[in-house]
């Protein structure tokens, strides 16, 4: 099958056409194209399934520092020309944006890959077979399954009036499954995410969700409090994906970030977390690839954000970099936390008395200065005693500073790509290990299952 989304040549001719209409001082065109498809199950049956094809063109025009943008998915020549004219009219009307910088010229990009035919060629029948395999296992176990297979395949491009052109094709897939007992007394979840469908293990997802649902039956109370805690990779990923935005130099300089220094400036170069914490990003990370450029066409490369607990880099927008007289640095496109070869069981074995958390739900920021989040545990929470899981326990609400959490890391296991979004769509790749932390604040009990 041909790849989904516009090819490099199609993109080039589309962006050339848009730029040929342009009369502004500066013009940028961002295009995304492709197909998203899904199969959804609940109550042990397929509930909905579908496929959407779209091409979205975003035109940004600037006269001096007067800037505006228009987005449209009407691609005929007349509509595109009108969109360019409208954008330019809107830009002339717009008050000046003193932070606007002219578009960059041509750039060199790494070829990082990221489009997998195994994902791009998936059909409704393929998704249906994967879903029905899971449904059969759930029916056999007398449980109730609800799952979701989310597939995207397409391409994006950026071109501007200074000769820049960037193109990247990518696929992504997430497959998740919740298995509940018919009486609603237990629930288990498992899921995979990747760029390559062959890495999605439908059989193992079914087995893991069923096992978790079985193990969590008969949960009992545990006092709220601060516990030594083992976080499974999905749990770690759900928390870490919430702090990606905190690595921003401007909000640190402006005194409203965890990385703000008392008295002014940032904590760059200072030890902010435990020395076991190293956080990097890399557009070429296998099965976690991202576009090797930002939305304005700046190249992105591998970066180290935290090295052995020391804050090494913050995101500097082109404007903020110019103002602070440093080089600009794009934000992290994916999130990679280093680990070790230790298994989840090794982490559990090291705990005398603590809690094992499978995943979270409804995570929200409480305080950006302290990087404090609230949220709830979901689909499998357990007490660990003397290195073994001793019993299933109720869910909890946590209120926890991510800064304190990363300062109290005692062990990190083997990193893996996880489905870190709560809605189970494939998002920015998050590759994290399971973590054992000294202290995690379980603030109140939740009766939810």
């Amino acid at each position: 099958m041909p790849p989904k989304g516009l090819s490099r040549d199609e993109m080039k001719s589309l962006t050339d056409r848009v730029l040929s209409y342009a009369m502004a001082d500066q013009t940028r065109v961002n295009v995304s194209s492709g197909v998203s498809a899904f199969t959804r199950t609940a109550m042990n049956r397929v509930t909905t399934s579908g496929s959407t094809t779209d091409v979205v063109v975003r035109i940004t025009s600037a006269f001096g520092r007067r800037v505006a943008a228009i987005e449209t998915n009407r691609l005929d020549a007349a509509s595109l020309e009108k969109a360019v004219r409208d954008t330019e009219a809107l830009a002339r009307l717009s008050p000046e944006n003193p932070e606007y910088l002219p578009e960059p010229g041509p750039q060199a990009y790494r070829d990082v890959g990221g489009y997998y035919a195994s994902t791009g060629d998936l059909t409704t029948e393929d998704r249906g077979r994967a879903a029905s395999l899971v449904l059969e296992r759930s029916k056999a176990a007398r449980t109730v399954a609800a799952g979701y297979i989310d597939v995207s395949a397409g391409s994006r491009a950026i071109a501007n009036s200074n000769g820049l052109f960037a193109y990247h094709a990518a696929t992504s897939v997430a497959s998740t499954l919740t298995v509940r007992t018919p009486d609603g007394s237990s629930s288990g979840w498992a899921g995979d995410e990747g760029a390559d469908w062959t890495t999605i293990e439908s059989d193992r997802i079914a087995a893991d969700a069923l096992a978790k649902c079985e193990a969590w039956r008969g949960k009992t109370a545990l006092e709220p409090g601060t516990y030594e805690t083992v976080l499974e990779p999905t749990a770690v990923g759900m928390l870490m994906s919430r702090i990606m935005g905190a690595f921003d130099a401007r909000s640190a300089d402006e005194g409203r970030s965890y990385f703000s220094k008392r008295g002014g400036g940032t904590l760059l170069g200072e030890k902010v977390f435990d020395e076991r914490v190293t956080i990097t990003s890399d557009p070429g990370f296998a099965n976690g690839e991202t576009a090797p450029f930002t939305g304005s066409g700046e190249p992105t490369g591998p970066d180290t954000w935290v090295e052995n607990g020391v804050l090494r880099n913050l995101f500097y927008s082109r404007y903020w970099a110019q103002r602070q007289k440093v080089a600009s640095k794009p934000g992290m496109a994916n999130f990679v936390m280093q680990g070790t070869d230790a298994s989840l069981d090794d982490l559990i074995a090291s705990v005398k008395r603590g809690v094992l958390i499978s995943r979270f739900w409804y995570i929200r920021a409480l305080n950006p200065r302290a990087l404090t989040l609230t949220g709830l545990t979901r689909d499998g929470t357990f007490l660990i005693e003397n290195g073994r899981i001793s019993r299933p326990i109720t869910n909890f609400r946590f209120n926890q500073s991510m800064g304190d959490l990363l300062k109290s890391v005692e062990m990190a296991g083997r990193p893996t790509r996880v489905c870190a979004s709560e809605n189970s769509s494939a998002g920015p790749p998050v590759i994290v290990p399971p973590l054992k932390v000294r202290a995690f604040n379980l603030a109140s009990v939740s009766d939810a299952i």
Partner: protein
Amino acid sequence: MADDQAGVNRREFVKLAAGGAVAVAAGLSSADGVVEAQRRTAPGPDAAERDLALLALDAARSAGAVYADARVIRVLSESINTRERQITNVTKSESYGIGVRAFVGGSWGFAATSALTRDAVATAARDAVAIARANDRVAPSATRLAPVPKVPDGRWITPHVLDPFAVALESKAQLLFRINEEALKVKGVRFVTSSADALKESRLLATTDGSLIQQTFIRVSPNINVTAVAADNSDSQTRSGSEGPMGAGWEYVTGLELPARATRYASEAVAKLSAPAVEPGAYDLVLHPSHLWLTVHESIAHPSELDRALGYEANYAGTTFLAPPEKVLGKFRLGQSLMTFVANRTEAGGNATVGWDDEGVPATSYPIVDKGLFVSYQSATREMIDAVAPLSSYKKAPGHAYGQSWASIPFPRMPNVSLQPAARNISEEEVLAATDRGIFIEGDGSYSIDQQRYNFQFGGQTFWEVRKGKKTRMLRDVAYVARTPDFWNSMAMIGGRETYQLGGALSDAKGQPMQLNSVSHGCPVALFRNVTVIRTA
């Protein structure tokens, strides 16, 4: 200036919008009042769009669909963002396409495309049927669709005075800059952002039942955020505005007197820096509607969604403590007799207010909690009526199918769900006067609730200590934690119609693929006894 001009128009808007309020107050079970008021001005279908929609239905029927619907949707949106004395973003966007839903056996298939040619539309329709058939083969289902009356020429438009897309960009930007300027005048304020979003959506629905319905939805949403930073950079505090989005025209924005509000938000952000942190413990809470709407949304409206009770949302949004239906309907006491919640898609200004839903069912209004007792779920669609008909008042679909755009499949979505005010006109002062030791909370803040909607924790924007019936000093770092049924059963007093206002959101997330819904919740000021308050910092 646009806002002065619309200040005059506001009265007119209120008069116009009252059409909807009358329909609700009179207890009409449909939006007849609003529909009638708007029928004369609501545009009819575009001929080319109608032809494409009918072509899609023909193609789906020929391919074997027993039922199909086609939605041609064109969404225009505009966003203007500012920061202090500069523009940070001006964007307009247009998304146009067709989504076709086909039903084969007992299974759904959906296909959507932005290519609005006859070939592409027919292909999408056949794809929808092929997807439905493939699903019916691998995992057959016995779902049945409840019948709906045919609407051959439905027309509806959001009641409004001033089309937001007819207001000049400069006057919108000017208003935002005035807001920022007023906030920056307050000493201690370092940052302010403001924005104005507007949306206009044309939605044509054609069904194989013979319905053809053209609706136009207009929504506007202003936002203000003011941040004060301590002199030594050791702390920052933000006050976000409490102006919710509204199903209305630009007159709603200008009628809010936002520059004056910005001054108040700015002084409150500064006051938060030096306010004492709350002492954790049990307090009475007086909750302003600008705050309470979100608690209603999360702890009443979500748990009463029928699809959650049946298990449709188990893999994401979750299930609900209001289940199973046979054990809770007409039996579960959620609150005292002063508490009545109405589900509706008819309320004036409501973000979920429409003429018909995405299955061609007329908008309705009905109680879900009646004098404290849980009497009905909401969010039902045609395929769900069989599951609850023996237990509930549902003999037909109440009109709650909605797909965010042409690209998204319609599924059960929340209507407006509103707490009815007291019959007597009780004022905010009277409610405060009934509070001996409490906290008065305005504005929505951090919010989080579990997947069955039991345990919640809500912050707010401003917190005032209440002593012996009077607001005293400001507090900070307040959040309250409760178990949903305990919390609502502790509601001891509510304000009258004069304290009633709508709050809402344009981005309520649900479903896989995740879709956003626009919804409003009306409520009066209300008093809750003995709620657990924690300190968040």
